[in-house]
Structure formats: C-alpha cells, structure tokens
C-alpha cells in the first residue's frame, strides 16, 4: 500500500474544504436552524409525538442523514470530477497508486467532510430540542458507514459524469427524493399499507430507521436488516469502483 499517496490525496482534498471552512460550517447551522423553526415549531405544534418521541427530537436523525448523504455524494463526486474536468487527473493516473488508494484518499476526505457537517447539525439540533442517544456507539457506526457508502456512490457519479449538469442531476433527481421519502421526517408506519410496502424498496429507509434506532431505540425495520442493507450497499459501490478501475471506464482511454 502506498500510504503516503493516500495521505497526500486526503490532505489535498481537505485543504479545499478548509479554504471554504466558514461556508462548510455556516450553511448546515443555518439550514438546521431553519428546519427546526419550520418543522419543529409549525408542524411540531400539530404533531405532538411520533412513536412516543417528541416531533422535534424525532426528526433529528433524519435531518442529519439528509445532510450527510447529500454532502457525502456531492463532496466525493466533485472531488474526482474536478481533476477529470481540468485535466489534473493525469497525475493520479501516472502515479504509483492503485484504485484502492485513490478511492481511500478521495472517499475518505469526502466522508470526513460529511461527518463534520453531521456533527455540526447534531450540535445545532441539541440547542433546539432535547434528545438522548440510546446507543452512541451504534450511532457513530451508522453515521460512519453512511458517510462512507454514499461517498463511494458520489465517487462513482463523479467518474460517470460527463459535465457539471450530470454531476448535479443524479443527486437531485434520485437521491434527494429517496432521502425525503425514506422517513426522514416521519415514521413509515404513518403511511397507508400500500406505501409502506413500496417504501421498503427504498434503501434509505433502512439507513434512517437504523440511525433513528440508535437514538430512540425504536425502528421501522429490524436493526440487523438496516446493517445488512448498508453493508450490502457499500459492497456494491466498492465492486463497481473496482470494475471502473480495472476497465479504465471513463478515466483511461
């Protein structure tokens, strides 16, 4: 393993993040506060409790997931798309690094940034509502796995994308709806039975359910299934990336 290369890529990517530190910090604080003002206050005054949990607290895990997922994807996809776009990818391709090292560098940095944003949201939320974390270790594990797996997905999107439009389109058209419909702001038990079944095909449901379980000890789907789903998803993304580098798809002519 070329650990030096992984560290170099990671540091280089993080430098980009630190250049825009203020924005990276302020925007999640602002959007979280707005969510609490709108959802927590306006809707929360109508919906007292969901599954025995105050609505304000109930949406915290969903809020974090929503941001962490979009951040992971956009950071990782931009991170690898940009060198492709401006041509600096020549340096990666001609360096003594293999696919795993490139992925670890880029995905690691993207996941770190997402993790940072997730933490900022968690802390901001704590200012607005009271909530406990029932299984802190599981919470951290779910958060890490989510950052990692969606950063992997973002990496794939970044390699696939041929222009900036495509880079934004996939997260916008596919991921955002999946996250919103994945029970970020409600329990899927609140849906009509037909929709409950349909929802079970949404992979994000398993994530949010598992994540929420780590907070409140209640889940829409069994926790084991959540872990299996996210593990499977991570593995699938890794397999696709392995194939990309083997064949040079969209990176090596």
């Amino acid at each position, binding site marked *: 393993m070329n650990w030096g290369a992984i560290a*170099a890529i990671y540091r*280089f990517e993080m430098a980009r993040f630190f250049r825009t530190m203020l924005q990276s910090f302020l925007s999640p604080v602002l959007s979280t506060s707005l969510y609490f003002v709108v959802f927590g206050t306006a809707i929360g005054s109508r919906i007292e409790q969901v599954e025995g949990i105050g609505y304000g607290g109930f949406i915290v895990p969903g809020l974090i997931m929503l941001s962490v997922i979009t951040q992971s994807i956009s950071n990782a996809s931009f991170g690898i798309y940009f060198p492709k776009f401006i041509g600096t990818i*020549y340096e990666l391709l001609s*360096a*003594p*690094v293999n696919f795993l090292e490139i992925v670890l560098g880029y995905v690691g940095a993207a996941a770190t940034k997402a993790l940072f944003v997730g933490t900022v949201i968690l802390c901001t939320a704590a200012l607005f509502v009271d909530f406990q974390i029932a299984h802190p270790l599981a919470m951290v594990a779910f958060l890490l796995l989510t950052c990692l797996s969606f950063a992997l997905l973002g990496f794939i999107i970044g390699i696939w994308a041929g222009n900036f439009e495509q880079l934004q389109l996939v997260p916008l058209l596919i991921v955002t709806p999946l996250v919103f419909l994945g029970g970020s702001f409600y329990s899927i038990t609140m849906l009509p039975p037909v929709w409950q079944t349909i929802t079970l095909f949404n992979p994000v449901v398993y994530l949010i359910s598992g994540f929420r379980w780590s907070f409140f000890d209640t889940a829409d789907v069994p926790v084991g299934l959540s872990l299996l789903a996210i593990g499977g998803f991570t593995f699938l993304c890794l397999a696709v990336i392995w194939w990309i580098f083997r064949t040079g798809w969209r990176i*090596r*002519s």
Partner: protein
Amino acid sequence: MSAMLSIRDLRKTYEGGFQALKGVTLEIEQGEIIALLGPNGAGKTTLISTICGITTPTAGEVTVGGHDILRDFRAARGLIGLVPQEIALEPFERVLNTVRFSRGLFGHRRDEALIERILRRLSLWDKKDAQVKELSGGMKRRVLIAKALAHEPRVLFLDEPTAGVDVELRKDMWDIVAELKADGVTIILTTHYIEEAEAIADRIGVINRGELLLVEQTSALMSRLGKKQIEVQLSAAISAIPPTLARPGLSLAGEGDVLVFEYDTQAERIGLTGLLNAIAAAGLVLRDVNTRQSSLEEIFVDLVSEETP
C-alpha cells in the same frame, strides 16, 4: 547495461478504432536525452501517455528500469516524471502545496529542503504562496516541471515543454535538462522545433502517423546536415566523367549534362577551385551553377512526405 526505457512493438488503437501507434520499438539508455520530432497528430503524446499509464497499450511491451509498466506498474511509474503537453493545475491551490502533493502522491517522505531547491531552481520560490491561477502561462509550466521533479524521477518525459513559452524560459529549460542529464536522469522530450532537438538531444527520433521513422545520433544527423552539394549544369551532355575530373564525391546526373559534387562544408580542403579549374581544363562549358544544403528540416520533411500518399 540494459536500457533504462525499452519499448517493444508498442501499439495503441483508440476506442473509435483509430490506430495512433503502429508498433513503436525504441531503446533508451540511462542518462540519454532523446528528442521525438513529429508533426501534430504523429502520436508523440500517445506514446508518452501509454508509457506513463494515462492510456492503456493495445499491444506491445514497455519496461522502465527493467520494470514492466503493467505487471510492475508501481516500480515503473515510481521512476517516471511527466510534464504534460497541456497545462493542467488546480487553480485555487498554492504553488508549494501542489508540489508537495506530487511528492506525496509518489509515496515519498516530505522533504522541504528538496522542494525549496526545485522551486528556487525554477524561479518559483517567491511565488510559492501564490495561487496557481494568479500565475502566467510560463510560470504555470514551471510549476508543472516542479511537480514532475518533486519525486526525484530517473526518467523524465517532457511533452512539448517549450511550445508557446518565451525565449528566457526556453533557454532555462535547456539548462535544466542539461543539469538533470548530469545527474544521470534519462530524458525524453517531444518538440516541434528542430533547433531545440539539435541543441539538447543526444539522439533524435522522427515519428509520423504512429511510426518511428528514424532514430539517429544527433551528431550523425548533423553531419548529414553538414553535407553540401554543388550542381554544375553543362551546356552539352557528356557520356562519362573525364578521367582528369574524377574524384570522390563527383557524379554525373540528369541526362549527362549535370555534374553533382557532394562535399563536406566542415572539411579542411574542399577542393572547389580545383574542380572548377579541372572542368575548364577539360573543355567543358558551364551553363549554370547552384549549391544546395540539406537541412534537418529537409531530412525531416522528406521522411514525413515519403509516408504521405
């Protein structure tokens, strides 16, 4: 001693079916400077990209320092520094950081002293904290060179390093190449400028349409260049050169009415006066005289146009 870079029957067909390299074979010794000359689209960049891992070879074998570029890619690429033809740099990054990054990418320990030396040598030290986007085109090219040198490569590829740069940078580049050669670095550069190849290369290769047409010592090519011809048009054809005229380098051409004398401008005694006197003494009448010198440019154009149907 085995070659530092060994290319055997390298072929590259791009996805659309275009054959950009049609079996290139070339051996380059350690510490050698070789210049690849060729028109646009000849396949120079493709050759370099294929060796460096940016494109995948369709067939053939390449070893760098004895390491196969595919099976043993880490060892092979670890020896290579690449300065690409197109300027590609992260615009918001600072000069020092981007050079450090290159060193790290090759798995080397940080070495601030080395990086300072490289930046100073390239007159970039006072720009080390500047963002890349603030630099002029020539400065950006220097950054690319600094990045390529940051991991102390043993083989350096320079793809048209002096295209569109000012005279100062070009001279500077030649000096740097000479210094690297003194350190035993093997250098492969592509260029459009024949005088550049002449000035710095040990050997010159001419490439066109994906084929290496010729590889020759620069000095051998230069001595060809040093040859001059004088053509003497006679007013009447003769059937053979009179014995009093016969001498090395003289031949009869045209329909027997042209005497061609080939001589070396660098020779001590050329014997032009003697020749002309002998022609007059033999009673031959001159109608016209002209001289011509084959330049490298001409050799190059000849080679390339032979190829073109």
